């Protein structure tokens, strides 16, 4: 076996999952609390700073304190639960959520002066990108339904059933919505999709390269519809407001994780936020050019750093851009949470099964028609 592959993969896994994703999850929760507080004209968590000093740092220590608290609390398993499934359910939510990021390209190929070949900044360069993400992400349903079922309690049970039904319903429109994207790019490899967008214009911003064509501008119609369906379905998939019915506190206490505490409870949260980040990452990758800069600036950057000793700069820059885009997307998530009220369950199902399903299906044929005739 290829030792280089293993070493580089190990570095990428550690770097992406533990140095980028995990801190991001922790701090997005803090950002969410602060941002919501601003929206609601409150202050939010602003005190936890460096221990035994008065340095507050705007409450930046909060996630660390929360994490420590989760670890140090009593790991309590109620007596009425089905122990085995109760314990593995949080892991079954978190593992698929973290696993999906394997195919997400988080930067331009890294060219290092002392290596012959460029390193692809994606953990596994699979040719089945979106399918892998959908396949693995849908396994997260098992964790939620098992959590609800194994808790042996009414509210979690109802929450689990609702969550299952909601997540599988929106999986269909989610899957259908990206087919126009695949029709245009003819690739399932996400890295190729991003590279194409970097050269020929983002899907939603075709303003350089080959993007200036009638076909691409007409294609904005199906692409825009697809983007809306994709983003809204992603909200539903990750059980976020306005679709947070599985855990709506006014009806179901806390939904499927009512009976959970300490780190197991925190794992549900980590899974949910990881799913949000990776969902945003997929949306950015498919529709908004992934790690690339708009208006053909990529070529400019490559030109400036063409020198051998600085050839690694564009890759790092693109990684920064990718995460910047994700952060903007996450802020949008939080903004929506602060703005919109919750849907009713029948409205949720109607939106998913009737409006989105039909719109996405029609959208596919509109896209195909544009490719055929324009």
């Amino acid at each position, binding site marked *: *076996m*290829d030792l280089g*592959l*293993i070493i580089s*993969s190990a570095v*990428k*896994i*550690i770097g992406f*999952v533990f140095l980028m994703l995990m801190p991001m999850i922790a701090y997005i929760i803090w950002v969410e609390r602060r941002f919501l507080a601003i929206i609601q004209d409150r202050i939010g968590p602003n005190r936890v700073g460096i221990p035994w000093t008065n340095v507050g740092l705007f409450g930046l220590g909060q996630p660390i304190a929360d994490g420590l608290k989760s*670890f*140090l*609390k*009593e*790991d*309590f398993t*109620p007596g*009425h639960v089905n122990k085995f499934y109760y314990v593995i359910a*949080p*892991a079954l939510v978190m*593992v698929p959520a*973290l696993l999906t990021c*394997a195919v997400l390209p988080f930067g331009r190929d890294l060219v290092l002066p002392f290596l012959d070949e460029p390193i692809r900044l994606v*953990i*596994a*360069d699979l040719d089945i990108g*979106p*399918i892998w993400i959908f396949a693995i992400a849908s396994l997260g349903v098992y964790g939620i339904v098992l959590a609800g*079922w194994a*808790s*042996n*309690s*009414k*509210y979690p*049970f109802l929450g689990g*059933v609702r969550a*299952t*039904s909601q997540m*599988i*319903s929106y999986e*269909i429109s989610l*899957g*259908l919505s990206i*087919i126009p994207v*695949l*029709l245009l790019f*003819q690739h*399932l490899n996400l890295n190729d999709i991003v590279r194409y967008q970097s050269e020929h214009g983002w899907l939603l911003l075709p303003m350089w390269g080959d993007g200036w064509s009638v076909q691409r501008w007409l294609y904005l119609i199906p692409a825009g519809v697809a983007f809306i369906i994709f983003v809204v379905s992603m909200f539903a998939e990750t059980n976020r407001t306005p679709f947070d019915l599985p855990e709506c506190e006014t009806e179901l*206490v806390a939904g499927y994780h009512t009976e959970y505490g300490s*780190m*197991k409870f925190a*794992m549900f949260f980590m899974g949910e936020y990881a799913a949000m980040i990776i969902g945003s990452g997929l949306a950015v990758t498919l529709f908004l050019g992934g790690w690339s800069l708009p208006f053909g600036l990529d070529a400019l950057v490559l030109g400036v750093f063409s020198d051998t000793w600085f050839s690694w700069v564009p890759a790092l820059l693109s990684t920064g851009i990718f995460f910047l885009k994700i952060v903007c997307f996450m802020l949008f998530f939080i903004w929506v949470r602060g703005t919109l009220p919750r849907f009713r369950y*029948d409205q949720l*199902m*109607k939106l998913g099964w*009737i409006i989105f*399903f039909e719109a996405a*299906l029609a959208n596919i*044929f509109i896209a195909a028609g544009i*490719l*055929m005739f324009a």
Partner: protein
Amino acid sequence: MLNQYIPVLMHLLVVVGFATMTLLMSVWFGRRSTSKQDIKDTAYECGMIPIGENQPRFSVKFYIVAMLFVLFDIEVVFLYPWAVVFRDFLSADQILIFWSILGFVGILFVAYLYALKKRALNWVG
């Protein structure tokens, strides 16, 4: 070919290991309460003593939704390979690639209309 999947395997191991470690660490570091209280062991129902079954019967609609999901998710999966090869076929056999998928989706769309009309997706009343 399968070399591509070695990172996936490593990733899987790392993530599963991380989840396991998290679960175990919370057991090791977590404070343990010495007193055994019965009230702590009851199912949470807003502080009241639970009444009735812990897993109540739920609407059959959820089951119908699950069945319809299986049907239409398979449809989605079949659309992916079609979408990827669509533009290659445009020059070769335009009629085949467009009408064959239209027929496939059409049959399932009839099924969808039928389910809709039979109120399988109706959650009101």
